């Protein structure tokens, strides 16, 4: 399949969803985008000194998952701020995890690429830095408790030795796992076509899993996720664009496509411009407060006292 922003996106699909759903998707996307904007500013100002793995650019898919499978236990990849935030974990805990503080979601011990959160009915397990190690873990968890499970990995992670057998094991034991490849076409900076001749959809299908290959249009992701959630185990390959480097806040240049602005445009077409703008402004303000200088610049001793 040719990589493109409209890969298997039905024309006019957004119109088949309610305005409430479309605006909820947008709200979630804004939460990721403006949280991370605050993080980027803090990094550039030298207020965060640890490595970060940013989700901006790919937040539409996580927003869609959060609207339909937010009760799944999640085994997320290294780039998982999007899942953490859209599934409802507190942004303050992510902010403090990025800063290595005891009030972070893992008490500041694990950092950006190892996110976990187990409160308020949410069960998010991250990985520890070995890409796709979360995939067999998620399959094992589904074997253990038979709960619906979301395993997310990237197109580079998909090549790890332990991913294919995980799909196979889930197929053999009919485990309720949704496998998702967030396909940004890069492993660090090496393109997929340089690394391999096969594609993950064919691999998943060969194990008997229903599989789709789609662009990250949030309405399309929502539609297919809902459909496949009744046919688990299943696989979705989602073509996304990474806004920042593999790690850190560097940018490679112009994005292949800018889903955030495409969704904003689509909301305008749906006649939801005013409501969307209100949501964006409100989320932006909330995230500015979370990243406010008076919080970041407070002496560490005082912050620890507050905690």
């Amino acid at each position, binding site marked *: 399949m040719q990589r493109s922003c409209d890969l298997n996106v039905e024309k006019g699909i957004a119109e088949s969803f309610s305005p409430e759903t479309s605006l909820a998707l947008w709200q979630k996307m804004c939460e990721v985008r403006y949280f991370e904007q605050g993080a980027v500013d803090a990094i550039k100002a030298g207020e965060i000194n640890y490595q970060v793995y940013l989700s901006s650019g790919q937040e539409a898919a996580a927003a869609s998952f959060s609207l339909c499978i937010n009760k799944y236990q999640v085994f997320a990849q290294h780039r998982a701020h999007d899942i953490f935030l859209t599934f409802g974990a507190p942004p303050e805990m992510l902010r403090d995890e990025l800063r290595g503080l005891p009030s972070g979601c893992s008490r500041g011990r694990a950092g950006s690429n190892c996110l976990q959160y187990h409160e308020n009915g949410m069960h998010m397990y991250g990985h520890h830095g070995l890409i796709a190690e979360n995939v*067999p873990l998620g399959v094992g968890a589904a074997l253990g408790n038979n709960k619906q499970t979301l395993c997310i990995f990237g197109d580079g992670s998909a090549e790890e030795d332990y991913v294919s057998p995980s799909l196979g094991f889930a197929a053999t034991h009919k485990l309720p796992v949704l496998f998702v490849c967030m396909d940004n076409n890069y492993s660090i900076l090496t393109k997929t076509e340089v690394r391999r001749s096969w594609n993950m959809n064919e691999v998943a299908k060969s194990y008997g899993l229903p599989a789709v290959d789609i662009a990250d249009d949030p309405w399309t992701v929502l539609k297919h996720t809902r459909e496949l959630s009744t046919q688990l185990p299943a696989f979705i390959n989602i073509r996304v664009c990474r806004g920042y480097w593999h790690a850190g806040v560097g940018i490679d240049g112009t994005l292949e496509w800018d889903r955030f602005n495409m969704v904003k445009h689509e909301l305008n077409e749906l006649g939801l411009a005013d409501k969307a703008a209100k949501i964006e402004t409100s989320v932006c303000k909330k995230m500015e407060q979370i990243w406010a200088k008076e919080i970041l610049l407070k002496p560490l001793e005082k912050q620890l006292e507050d905690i």
Partner: protein
Amino acid sequence: MGKRNLAETIRETTRRHLEEENGLLLGQSVSAVGWVNGTVPDTRGIVELPMTDVAGAGFAVGAAMVGRRPFFVIRFQDFLVLNGSPLINYAAKVKELHGQSAPVFIRAIAAEGIGPVHSTVLHGMFMHFPGFKICAPMSPGEYEKIYTSFMKDDDPYYVSEHRFAYQNKEEFEDIIRDDADITIFLASSPRLFAAEASKTLEKEGTKCNIIHLLWLKPFTCSEAVIRGLKKSGKGLVIDAGHEICGASRSIAYELGMASGVMVHALGLKDHTKCLCPPLQNKAPEVDEIVAKVRNILKLK
């Protein structure tokens, strides 16, 4: 029914775990060819893994994270080089990083004399990594003890088994004597040869304290043992794994620091375990233990 041997004890402990504790047992070819030397029961909760080293360990760790306390059977410890990643990088780290737990019971089984990647003991390698509890039970009573401990704990356990001990029905007792010339600490299969080695040495006039090591990590030692070591004035730790960076040297260092006594180490030579003798590089048995003690004591 007479006393159970170690293999039967493992099988019945596992049966209890699966039938009464909602446990799982995962492993490759566990329900065929003798059910892993008669240590696996034919009951519910057994998951035959495909030949997916690495992923298989990941499945076990995932099941542990959601409370199933799986037994993960590794028929030959050598296979833990591949399977080690989810155990080392996830199960052993998840508690310190996130306050979560992944209590997986790794049945790491050793053998002897069946070639370069079916005969190794790797508990020393796993001792290197934080987050594991590591033991090497060689008797039925010891196995029951470590299982009870596991069920009260939330750490992953590396249970270093050895096929040499499967038929054993006896328990081991430490021997500490006032007139000892040396204190010998033994882990894994060399323990099975301790009594005979000690008897041989005594005939030559060398008296030994014999200390059996069940727990390798965390390693603790009683005051009585340290007193015995100090009084004997010389120590030796013997293990079935490779000596360099292995359990024998590591524990010898700890004992030396705790006692001020020079404690020697004896493990495998820095060679591959080849198939045929004399190149098998076997774990120390009677002759090698006796020779090492003579060497330490500068006897002929």
